[in-house]
Every structure is written in structure tokens, then in C-alpha cells.
């Protein structure tokens, strides 16, 4: 009986240890850039970015497939370097920011592709519609802040793409935009 209790306690310790192997991070909103590019009637690629980004990461460095990431963008924070275009992009013709204030990405599976790279598959929720999107992610570095050894910061870069019409932005084709939207993401996160 004592052996059983000991074995159970040891198993519990190992399981707890495994759970602690993943570190929790919070995205630093002042060092997060979610940019996008999409065709503008074939003339050029229109660039834009979201100014308000937040999210959390559970990062398991021993087994990256057990990591998770959740990112939220404020739709109304879109910026394309023209105020009138920003206003139109916030309307129901595009992001419908009043009805659907947040755009979210929640990982569902992670496949390791290299020492510091992975394919992160997740549900992108835009305009109330969720569809899977794959991001190619690179873990860049992790270190303490030079002026604060107790604060650990990590950083990632990611790229991916999705079709805007698939999420209900049907007006994209009417206005000669896209429909493919390329994402270019960089963010830093603070270890909690």
C-alpha cells in the first residue's frame, strides 16, 4: 500500500513537472506588429497594420507541439496610412468593427519544422466566422531585459495568409482588393 501511495505521489510530481514545463507569456502590446498586405487592383500591394494587439502564449520549449497561443486584434485599430480609408475599412463593407470588435487567432495544433521554427495551425475568427489558418512561426530569441534581470522577454516572427472572401468580406472583389491577404507578424512577449 505504501508503495502504491509513493508511486502515485511520484507520478503526480512528474505530471506536475510536465505541466510546469510550459512557460506562460503575455504579448507586449507596445512591441507587437501585425501587418498585412493585399493586392490593390493588381497595381500594388496595399499595406496595413493593427495598432492594438494582445494575447497570451504557453510556450513549452521541451516539446513545442504542446505550446499554445492566443492573439486578439482590435478591428477598429486598423491603420493603412489614410484616415478615410481606415474609416471605410472599419465599416461592414470590410471589418465591421462595430459589430465584431475583435479579430482572434487561437492555435489548435503545432508542428515543429526546425530548431526554432514551427507551423502553427489555429482558428482565425473574423466577422464572426472561424476558419483554420496556418502560420509559419520562427522563435527569434529569449533573454532578460538589459535593465531588469527579473523580466524575461521572448520574441517571435510569423507569416501566413488567408482569403478575405472566405470570411465574408465579399466587397473585396467589388473594390478590386485581394482577396488573398498576407500576414506579417512580429511580437515580443513577457514571461509571467
Amino acid at each position, binding site marked *: 500500500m505504501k508503495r502504491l501511495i509513493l508511486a502515485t505521489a511520484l507520478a503526480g510530481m512528474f505530471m506536475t513537472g510536465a505541466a510546469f514545463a510550459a512557460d506562460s507569456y503575455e504579448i507586449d502590446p507596445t512591441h507587437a506588429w501585425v501587418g498585412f498586405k493585399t493586392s490593390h487592383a493588381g497595381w500594388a500591394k496595399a499595406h496595413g497594420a493593427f495598432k492594438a494587439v494582445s494575447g497570451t502564449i504557453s510556450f513549452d520549449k521541451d516539446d513545442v507541439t504542446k505550446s499554445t497561443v492566443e492573439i486578439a486584434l482590435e478591428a477598429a485599430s486598423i491603420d493603412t496610412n489614410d484616415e478615410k480609408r481606415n474609416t*471605410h475599412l472599419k465599416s461592414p463593407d470590410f471589418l465591421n*468593427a462595430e459589430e465584431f470588435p475583435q479579430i482572434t487567432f487561437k492555435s489548435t495544433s503545432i508542428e515543429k519544422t526546425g530548431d526554432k521554427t514551427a507551423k502553427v495551425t489555429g482558428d482565425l475568427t473574423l466577422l464572426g466566422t472561424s476558419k483554420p489558418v496556418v502560420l509559419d512561426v520562427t522563435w527569434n530569441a529569449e533573454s532578460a531585459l538589459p535593465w531588469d534581470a527579473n523580466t524575461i522577454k521572448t520574441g517571435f516572427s510569423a507569416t501566413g495568409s488567408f482569403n478575405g472572401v472566405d470570411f*465574408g468580406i465579399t466587397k473585396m472583389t*467589388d473594390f478590386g482588393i485581394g482577396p488573398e491577404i498576407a500576414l506579417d507578424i512580429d511580437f515580443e512577449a513577457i514571461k509571467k
Partner: protein
Amino acid sequence: MLTQILLTSVLLPLVLGAVIALAGKGATSRAVLLTALLIPVAAAIASVSIEGLPPFPPIAAKQKLPLLLVIGGVVFAILAVLLRQFVNRWIIALVGVVSLAAPAWWLGKNVLAANATKATTLAIVLVIVAIEIAAVSGRQARKSSPAALPAALLATAIGSALTAIMGGYIGMAQMNGALAALFGGWLLVRYISYIRGDDAAFVLGDIAALSFIWTAAMGATMTVLLSPSAAPVALVLSVLPVAIFAVLDWQEVGFANRARFLQPLIIGALAAIPAIAAILVAVLAGG
């Protein structure tokens, strides 16, 4: 792109409005039923042609709009049958209030809960429309100037369209433009009938009039709820043309001393004054 916009936002609704004017000719109960049913349904067809077929169940308000318009058409058609024998202006007004408040809540409860300015603006707009419905309802109304009501709604749709454009919502500008074309097509056919001697060419039955006003009000409601930066004053002004109609009707103004062909045009121009003011305010606010 321009051809597509002209086709969906102007030509199709214009033709539909003309067809409804021909199908619903006269003040018979059949004509009232047809007009009450078909005006919102034609608006739904215009919405689908502009925005595409919505998913079912609809997710966003703009996807709910065509379904709402079809439901509205069916409800008004049923009311046209049920209220054929007895039409009390307060019953019409009550139907009007419910038919405005319930869709506004369904379309925009999240927006209304989060945005006090839009909630206040929409409340003012819908109260004005409800008062207008009460003012134009009942057998005592429309002693004169019957052209003013559809002309006022044409002006409301144009005012809402320009306010939507300046407020950054081009899709709703297209939809309000389509409503203007729908009402314009109806008015064009009826104006020709009027010129040819039909004094009752512009007369609408109570439920048909309610259906017209409600359809225009749904366009205004969507504009208030979802235009990112539409000027609230412009939105309120854009629904005031029907109030001009109510005043003209109350005062029994018909411009009978003017040439026959000019009378509806003068009335239309008067009804359009608040809409013109709405456009000016929207343009100034849009900078």
C-alpha cells in the same frame, strides 16, 4: 465595377419600383396588399444583388437585412388583409412602433449596448419615424398632396445614402441609393398616371404607406447603426422629409393654383428640404 453598381443599385430597383407601381395600381385592397408586400421584398432583392446571398442563419446585420425585409413584407401583407375592415390610426401607429423597435434591436443590440451616441441617435430617428407614422395614418389623413409621402421617402433614401457615404459605409450608401431608385421607379410610373389624369395616382393605403415608410426606415436604421462616422445630425435630418409631408397634409397644402404637372414636383421639392440639409451637414462633417 461601375456598371455593376449602376445595375444593382439603380437599374434593378428602379425597374422593380415601376413594376410594383403598375401591379399595385388603384386604392383597392388587392393593390394595398401587393404594395405592402412587394416594396420590402423588392428592397430585399436589391440588398442581395448588392451584398450577395447571405448565409443562413445570418451573422452580421447586413446579412440579416434581406431576411428582415422579406419578413416585413409578409407581415405587412398579412396586416393588409386583417386590417382591411377597420383601420384605426393608433393601431397603425402601434404596429409602426413595434415594427421599428424589434428589427432595430435584432440588427444592432451589440452596437446599441456599446455605443451611447448611436443608441441615442437611433432612438431619436425611430421616435421621429413613429410620430410620422402616427401622423400619416388613418382615414382622416392625406386630404391633399398625396405625392408628398413617396417623394419624402425618396428624399429620405437619398439623404441617408449621402450620409452613409460620408460616414464611410459605401455598401449602405448603395443600399439607400437602391431604395431611392425603388421609390423613384414607383413615383415615375405614378407621375405618368397622374399627368394622364389619374388624381389618385399617388394615393397609398394605410398599410402600404406604412410598408413604404418602414422600408425607408430600415435603410436609415442600418445607416445609424453601422456607418463608422456618419454625422448624427445628418441622420436625424434625413428622416424628417416625412414630417414635411405630415405638415403639408395637415395644412391641406396641394398647390392647386399651380399647373397640374408642377404640383407633385413642388411638393417633392419641399419634402426634400430636410434631406438637402442632411446632405450639407454630412458633407461638412465629413470634411
